[in-house]
Every structure is written in C-alpha cells, then in structure tokens.
C-alpha cells in the first residue's frame, strides 16, 4: 500500500480526497492528511516516509513553496515525488509549479483523474 501524504490547511479537502480514495480504490493507498506545512516537516523529521506528497500552495504560515523548498533542500527527503494540488490557476504558479514539481493539478478534480496522475508519477520514480 502506497503511503501518500496530503498537505492542505482545509480539513474538508483532506476528508473528501481521503474518502474518495477509500471508497473508489479501497486498500490501494494510505492517505496521511496533514493540516499545515509545519506539521508536514515535523512528520518527515519523525521519520514518516511517504511515497508521494500532494501539496497545496495557498496555506497560512508556511505555504506550499516553502514546504517544497525545505523538502528539496534535505538530502534524505529530496527524492520523494511531489505533486502540487491547488486551486491556484494563475500562469505564474502553474508554469513554476509544473516546472519544479513532478506534476501540477488544479482543483476541483475527479478522483479518477487524480489516481491516474498519482500512478504516473509513482511509476516514474
């Protein structure tokens, strides 16, 4: 079972995606919902090692970009694939995001499409 860390400040977002996967593709993924960038880093420091991170950009305190930088700056974590999952659709975020991360997905999204793209990234890594 693949371990996927979902970083989003909105609890509803975490719940819906988690529920979606549980219902549509039971026992395929273990979704770890994290409510802030800070908590994400903390978990990683506690040796929680996900196979993939779904990262929201617009978050209070520590935003997605910062979290991305911290992960990529760490020797132990930098190989973890990251997909930006965000409602931001402005050109800058889209082009920058799709350039640096493994994928960039805009909300709202079908759970089916999300699965396909996650699987693609996992296959590559």
């Amino acid at each position, binding site marked *: 079972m693949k371990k996927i860390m979902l970083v989003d400040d909105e609890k509803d977002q975490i719940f819906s*995606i988690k529920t979606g996967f549980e219902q549509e593709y039971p026992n395929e993924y273990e979704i770890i919902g994290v409510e802030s960038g800070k908590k994400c880093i903390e978990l990683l420091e506690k040796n929680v090692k996900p196979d993939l991170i779904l990262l929201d950009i617009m978050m209070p305190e520590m935003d997605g970009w910062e979290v991305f930088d911290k992960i990529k700056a760490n020797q132990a974590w930098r190989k973890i694939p990251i997909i930006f999952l965000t*409602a931001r659709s*402005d050109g800058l975020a889209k082009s920058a995001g799709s350039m640096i991360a493994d994928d960039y997905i805009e*909300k709202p999204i*079908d759970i089916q499409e999300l699965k396909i793209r996650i699987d693609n990234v996992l296959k590559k890594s």
Partner: protein
Amino acid sequence: MKNGIKKFYNLKIKIILPVFFILIIVFLTSSLIIIDREYNSAKDSLIDNAESYSSLSVATLIKNYETLYESGFYQFIQIVDDLLSLNKNANKIQILNINGKILFDTNELFEKTKYDEITYGERYLQDPDLIKRIISSEPSNQFLEKEQFFDIVQPYITEFGRHDYSIRYIFSLSSLEEMKQEMIFTIFISSGIFIIISFLLIFFILNRFITAPIGKLIKSVRSMGKGNLGNEIIVNSQDEIGELASAFNKMRTDLKKSQDSLKEYSENLEKLVTNRTEELEDKTANLEKINRDLIRARKELDALNKNLEKRIKERTNEVEQLLKQKDEFINQLSHDLKSPLNPLTILLPILEKQETDPKKIEIFQVLKRNVEYMRNIAIKTLELAKLNSPKTKFSLEKIDLKDEIQRIIQNKKNLFDSKNLEIKNNVMKKIFVKADKLRLEELFSNLLENSVKYSNEKGLIILDAKKEQGFIKISIKDNGIGMKKNQLKHAFEEFYKADTSRHDFESSGLGLSICKKIVERHNGKIWMESEGLGKGATVFFALPLYKNKELEK
C-alpha cells in the same frame, strides 16, 4: 608692371642698336672708299704735276748748270732754289751724267758749298736699276713708298739728239699722307656727327611715333586695368598703333559697357541684398521673439510636465497597485471558489453510487449537475479574467499544427465517442504556427466541445487549414444544428447563448468568448459561418504562421 617697362626699353634697344651698327658700317665703308679714291686722285695729280714740272724744268736746269755751275755757283743754287719752290713736293734734285756720276745734288744748295771732288772723290749712283734708268733716253719714275718718296728720272736730249745728262727729281709723299690723315680725321668727325644726329633723329622718331603712343597705350591700359575706363586713349596716328589704340578703345567701351551693366547689376544686387538682409533681420528678430516665447512656454511646459509626470507616476503606481490587487483578488477568488467545489465533485458521486433509492439518486444527479455547472462557470470566468489581464503573458513557440490537433483529438476521444461522431483532420503536414501551446489546446478544446455539443448523433466534424499571407486560416466544420444569421453575430459575446429560453447546464456562455480572446491575443481573428438552422456551422480563425527567420533569432 615693372617687367613690362623693362621689356619696353628692351624693345627700344632692340630697334636702335642694329640701326646704329648698320649706320656705322655704312659710314665706315663709304668713308674708306672715299679716302681711297681721293688718295689715288691726289697721288695721280701729284705724279702729273711732278712729270710736267720735271719735263719743263729739265732744259732750264741743264743750261744753267753748264753756264753757271763753275763761274756763278751761288747764282745757280739760287735758280735751283727758285725751281724747287715752284713745286712744294719737290724735295731733292740730282744732276747726273749718263755714267751715273752725280754732278749736282741739292744738298749743296742747303750747305751752300760746292762739292769738293778733289777731297772727297767723285760721287756715283750705286743702284744698278737707277743707272739703267739714267742711261735710258725715256723718262721713268718709281715709287719708294716705304721711304715716302717718289722719284722721276728725266733725260736731257739736245737739239742734235745728244744725251749727256739726266736729272733725278725726288718728291716727298708726306703731303699725301698728311692729306690722307686729314681726310680720315674730317670724315670721322663728320660721320660721328652724322651718326649722332641720325641716332637722335631715329630716337626722336621712335619716341614720337612708337614709344610715346605705346607708352600712352600702356598708361591707358594700366589705368584700365586699375578699373578706370572713363578716359579714351588718344593716339592720333593712323598706323598700326592707331589701330591698336582704337581696338583698345573699342575694348574699353565694351568693357565700360559691361562694367556699367555689372555695376548696375551689383548695385541692384546690393539693394536686393540690403532688402533681404533687412527682411531677414526682421524675421530673425521675430524668430528670436518667438524663440524666447517658446523657451518660456517650454519652461512652463516642463514644469507642467514634471508635475504631470509626477502625477502620472503616482497614478500609474496606483493603477499598478490596483491591478495587482485585482490579480490577487482573482487568484484568491479562484482558490476560494474552486476549493469548496472539490469535496462536492469528489463526494457526491460516491454517495450517488451507494444510493439505491431512485428518488434520492435523482436528487444526487441534480446536485451533481449544478455543481458541474458552478465549476464550469468558475473556471471559465477566471480564465476570461486572466485573458483580459494585460499581465497575463503568452509564451509563443513553434507548433506543428497537424500533430497538435491530432493529439487534442486523441485526448477528447471519449467526448466524440459519446455522440458517435466521426472526426477528420484534413490539415496538411508541416504547417507551423506561432502560438502559446497551453492556450492553443484550450482554444481547440473549447471549439471542439462546442461543435460536439451542437452536433447530432453520428455527425461529422472536419478540421482544415489554409495558408493566407503570413497567417493560417483554420476551420472547424460540423453538420449540426447550425445557426441563424442574427445569432452568428453574437456567438462570441460573453454569456451569450443561442437559445436563451433553455437553461443549458453544459454551457457557461463563455467558451467562445475565451476562444475569441485567445485568438486575438495571438493577433488573429475568429468568426463563424452557417447556412442557417439545421445546416451545420463552421468556425474560422486565423493564427500567425511561424517564420524561419524568427527561429534564427
């Protein structure tokens, strides 16, 4: 000018010197000829005189000698002296017998003593030639020019033909020489005077008729050269110089005429220039005034401009701030609108699947449809807002049109299959457009979705492209429900729907507006054509062709 004078004097000398030499030569030769002739005639007359003198005096001398020499010596020498004085050239007389013995010599006359034969011996002639002449009964003469002497030997023949005595007369030629020298002297003097007079005469003539007129001419020409054309050259002679002078006069009058006209012209010109200068000065003054005004105005304008610039900067900053705020607002709105839709789009299908009650299933379907509509509206509105923002940058690149369309068709396969549509990509290979890839995909997606929506079951959609003057005209043709003419005009307006009465959940009314924006942002044009309702519709749009030059850049 100095050079001219020098040459002029040279000319004078050139004329006078040869004349002078010719004169001298002529006079010298003529004088020599005259002297020679005179000398000869004098000599001839001297000889004639001497001959007649000797022939006349010979008898008298001999008779007196025979009678008086012994008895009256003094009387005899008196007679000889008298005879000698008859011819001023007669210098010496010798009485000789035919043996060559000198009987009497005029030396005795000068010494007043008889020659003492007993003491000094008899005297004889030594020269044999002379003795021969003495013996001859014919008179003879001889010139001894070296000694300046001339002698005549005259024989004395008696009535009875007896020849006992001969007399030798010696004449001095010094008078001839004197005469010669005198002549040379006088001739030289007179010829000298003549030469001087003729020289002066020539000089005068030269001066009077050539030099002076030429000098006058030169003076006039010189004054002409200085620009004085007023005075006529007065040369009265009718000769070549006169002609020259009149030619000069002609030239002078012509020159004066042209000078006058030139003067007039230059005066006019001066006047004109003065007028123009005045005008110019006026204009310059005007211009200066205008310039000053302009400078003042410019200063004022500068001040205003600075003020304005400052204000524009302030306003620009404000506007920029506002635009930034707007962009931030749109992004925030995008996030805020789209994020809440996410749980709905994910969770509603799950609930719907689990539900078995048909009534509740219908409720879920209504909810799902409305969520989809909301999502559609949110995405499209944000998209349009982005396209309207000048901050949104397009990254243009070279795109192979046929390949790109093929890829989009492949991605939309499910969409076409849902209505069992046939789709044809008739676009030629190797047509390249200059476009933003993501926007181009959006454009084709929107247009194809639109065509699918208005196509009937098992319809046909044809894509084609045609090159036209740096652009490529792309067409998407369907054989669907078509459009009325008045509908065509509004097709690309925001929130326009062909059928306003129908609440179309699948259409936001923004799709074609977004397409129009994308095409326009590529400097292109989009329009729709339809034969009418039920006859299908074709969307055309033009995009700029990719030029190889740009690739090189």
